[in-house]
């Protein structure tokens, strides 16, 4: 952008900004100031108006006093007998009384209230019947000059003035009479009516309108404005200006109010004069004042930058443009042009400096041309020298050829060496292919499917088993692999990530074409290569057979359980029925004992079968635990009830010692806890001959401990180590096993069951011949 345009834009912007600020501030300060002046003017004119009213009233005050004085004067001159003066005074009085002027009527009354002289031709019988006049008469009779507020006499507004007629010599005595005048109210009305540019309201001290020049309805004049804000403000502040609603409506007005101040002896009646100017009229007048100012302002701020702009353009930009033009001409090589600027300012200096620079440049330029010529001559000389040197070099060349012959011999030696290396490489390659063949054959003969995939997802090698299992070759195999494993892993991602983070993966039980397979995925890491990961290996193993085997093992347990126990249950059931229903038929005691034994054997067999099955389940983690919250105390009580100790031939006691504090709920499989307890109590009963068994509980931090203490034969230290092991009753050897009846699995099963519930069983203490204490724990709920 050109400088001139920039400057113009800056000017333009500054003018705009100044304009906006100027207008806004002019409007703001201007309107405020003008309104202020306007308010002052209003107040001033209101004060003047009330003052002129006060002065008029004061004149009437003086009038009535002078009339009273004139009566005295007349009396005095009468007494002195001066005919002429009497005549003059008479004339004066009559003239006064007959003057309509500001007075409606004037009366001279004697002290009895009779009219002596009057301006009226027809006098009513007794003017004192009117209370206002009577009051004025009485007040004056007391010796005071009096004036009333605006009152109505003969239906006309007026103000009653009265003054006592007292001889100066007899001052202090009762007045001889009274002069009374009714002031002609229209005089005031005229004063107010003369004001045209605003509405004026005159209100008496009680807020009742006396007179107004308002055209807005007749009732305004006499309306009671007692509660109007302007009236109340006037009572309070005497004079002032305020924005408020008009006396005759909702119009917003600027209201100037003044309280009657009086003039000298006339103190006034407390009237209030209010002037109203509508607000919109004020705004109009404000604008009338401001707009010419704004126009001048506008002209000044638009014109002055323009002048400034022209100045800058002529004095700065044009010279600079010229300098630029000349500088450009220098680029073409001619240095002849010079700047013509004659001003004495900075631009002038710039021009001068430029010219002297141009002179200097032109000097240097001519100097340079001379130097170039000199250098060219030097160069020519040097080229001569070079030619001489070249000749010398040619001589050296023949010496070089000899050296090249030596090089040829060296090359032959190298060739021989190369042949040797190639032979070695061939040997290695053969060796490698043998290794590869061995590897291939191992891979092909692997009993599992083998796939090797490179990092780009391409099949490197697969054995025939893999092809058979996946039903295809190369890429088809990989596709099949992805489909089969899609629920387990994203194969593409595994291949991509194999170098970092992914490790060997194993997926069992993958079903494919009705058979079960195990997949092993493993990245191939090559330590010698920077990239490290070169692909993955997939091994596929058919586990269908193993699975069938496993399932049949599962089924074996339930079938064995069912099949073994069914005949045993039949033996047990039938013998018990014989004992119960055919007691008569087997009266023979020997026979009965035998049937009894068969019955008991069947029970024992069932228990042993149950124990065996439980051990298998526990060892294979196939035991189901139904872990719930339960009341351990209740379980202990119920379990002990099942033991019939009183009926046994040994007469042992079996007690449950309940703790003092109530047992908290525990978490476990109640049925299994019951079985453990049955085992422990059963063992104790088995190995105790006299005394009894006590079950008690103990509260631990996180669990409850159940203790089973007996007074049995106790367990030797050596035997203690064998406890809780499979088939280890605390007996010495297989052949000296205790025949107390049982599988020898009870404690082992108990230990395993508690293990499944987070509990523990142990031998607390045992002393041979005195008894043992076993304990187990169950976690608190």
């Amino acid at each position: 952008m050109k400088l001139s345009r920039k400057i113009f834009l800056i000017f333009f912007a500054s003018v705009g900004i100044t304009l906006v600020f100027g207008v806004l501030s002019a409007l703001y300060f201007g309107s405020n100031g003008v309104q202020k002046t306007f308010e002052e003017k209003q107040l001033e004119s209101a004060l003047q108006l009330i003052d002129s009213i006060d002065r008029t009233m004061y004149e009437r005050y003086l009038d009535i006093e002078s009339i009273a004085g004139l009566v005295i004067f007349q009396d005095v001159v009468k007494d002195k007998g001066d005919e002429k003066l009497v005549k003059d005074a008479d004339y004066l009085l009559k003239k006064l009384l007959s003057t309509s002027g500001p007075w409606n009527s004037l009366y001279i009354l004697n002290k009895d209230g009779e009219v002596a002289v009057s301006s009226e031709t027809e006098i009513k019988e007794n003017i004192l019947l009117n209370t206002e006049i009577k009051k004025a008469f009485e007040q004056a009779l007391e010796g005071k000059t009096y004036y009333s507020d605006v009152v109505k006499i003969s239906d006309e507004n007026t103000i009653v003035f009265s003054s006592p007629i007292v001889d100066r010599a007899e001052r202090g005595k009762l007045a001889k009479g009274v002069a009374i005048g009714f002031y002609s109210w229209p005089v005031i009305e005229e004063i107010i009516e003369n004001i045209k540019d605003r509405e004026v309201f005159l209100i008496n001290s009680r807020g009742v309108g006396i007179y107004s020049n308002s055209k807005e309805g007749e009732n305004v004049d006499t309306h009671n404005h007692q509660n109007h804000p302007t009236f109340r403000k006037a009572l309070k502040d005497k004079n002032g200006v305020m924005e408020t609603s008009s006396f005759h409506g909702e119009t917003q007005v600027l209201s100037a109010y003044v309280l009657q101040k009086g003039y000298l002896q006339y103190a006034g009646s407390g009237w209030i004069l209010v002037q109203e100017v509508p607000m919109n009229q004020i705004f109009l007048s404000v604008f009338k004042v401001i707009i010419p100012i704004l126009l001048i302002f506008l002209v000044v701020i638009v014109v002055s930058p323009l002048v400034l702009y022209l100045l800058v353009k002529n004095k700065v930009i044009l010279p600079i443009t010229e300098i630029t033009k000349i500088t450009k001409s220098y680029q073409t090589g001619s240095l002849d042009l010079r700047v013509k600027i004659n001003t004495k300012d900075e631009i002038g200096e710039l021009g001068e400096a430029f010219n002297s620079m141009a002179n200097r440049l032109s000097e240097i330029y001519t100097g340079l041309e001379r130097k170039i010529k000199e250098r060219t001559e030097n160069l020519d000389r040097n080229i001569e020298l070079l030619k001489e040197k070249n000749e010398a070099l040619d001589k050296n060349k023949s010496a070089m050829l000899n050296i090249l012959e030596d090089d040829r011999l060296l090359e032959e030696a190298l060739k021989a060496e190369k042949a040797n290396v190639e032979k070695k490489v061939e040997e290695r390659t053969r060796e490698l292919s043998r290794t590869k063949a061995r590897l291939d054959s191992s891979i092909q003969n692997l009993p599992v499917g083998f796939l090797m995939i490179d990092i780009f997802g391409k099949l490197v090698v697969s054995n025939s088993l893999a092809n058979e299992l996946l039903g295809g070759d190369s890429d088809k195999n990989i596709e099949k692999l992805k489909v089969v494993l899609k629920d387990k892993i994203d194969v593409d991602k595994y291949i991509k990530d194999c170098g970092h983070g992914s490790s060997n993966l194993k997926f069992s039980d993958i079903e494919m074409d009705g058979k079960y397979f195990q997949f092993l995925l493993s990245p191939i890491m090559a330590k010698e290569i920077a990239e490290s990961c070169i692909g993955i290996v997939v091994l596929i193993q058919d586990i269908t057979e193993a699975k069938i085997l496993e399932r049949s093992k599962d089924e074996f347990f339930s079938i064995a359980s069912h099949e073994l126990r069914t005949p045993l249950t039949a033996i047990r059931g039938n013998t018990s029925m014989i004992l119960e229903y055919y007691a008569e038929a087997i009266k023979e005691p020997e026979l009965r004992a035998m049937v009894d034994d068969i019955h008991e054997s069947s029970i024992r067999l069932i228990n042993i079968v149950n124990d065996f099955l439980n051990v298998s389940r526990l060892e294979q983690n196939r035991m189901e635990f139904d872990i719930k919250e339960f009341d351990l105390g209740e379980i202990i009580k119920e379990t002990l009830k099942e033991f019939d100790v009183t009926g046994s031939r040994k007469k042992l006691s079996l007690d449950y010692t309940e703790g003092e504090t109530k047992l908290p709920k525990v978490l476990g499989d109640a049925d299994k806890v019951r079985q453990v307890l049955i085992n422990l109590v059963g063992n104790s009963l088995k190995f105790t001959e006299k005394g009894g068994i006590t079950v008690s509980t103990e509260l631990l931090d996180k669990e409850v401990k159940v203790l089973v203490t007996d007074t049995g034969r106790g367990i030797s230290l050596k035997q203690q180590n064998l406890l809780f092991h499979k088939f280890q009753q605390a007996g010495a050897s297989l052949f000296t096993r205790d025949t107390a009846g049982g599988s020898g699995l009870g404690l082992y099963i108990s230990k395993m069951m508690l293990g499944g519930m987070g509990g523990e069983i142990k031998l607390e203490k045992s002393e041979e011949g005195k008894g043992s204490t076993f304990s187990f724990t169950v976690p608190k709920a």
Partner: protein
Amino acid sequence: MTKILIVEDDPLMSRMYQKIFKFEGFEVDFASNGEEGLEKIRITKPTLVLLDIMMPKMNGLEVLEKLKLDPETKAIPVIMLTNLAGTQDAEAALAKGAVKYIIKSENEPKQVVNMVKEILAGYTRNDVPNISPTS
């Protein structure tokens, strides 16, 4: 007379339970597989059914399911009588509407009769809950 139907494939078991219920004065009938059992229940409307689980043709749980679907037979109380010891089977049977689950090897025949008596005392034929109280 109270009629008990024993559905049991193993003749040893079947005979034993027939005997004990006869001894205890019940009218007893029996079926030796699931299908036959279902048929007999529909025709004879026994007071109570003792139902084995492992049986040929139709297993006990299937029979129970069919019984409970049929409005004619769903009110007949059914006791599962088995030698399978898994708690899962017990829960499955009770969930399907069996009144009780008795493991044969753990109870004397007389105990089984007592349990049946107890149940019959507790419920009339028309007032059998779908899911029984636990034992």
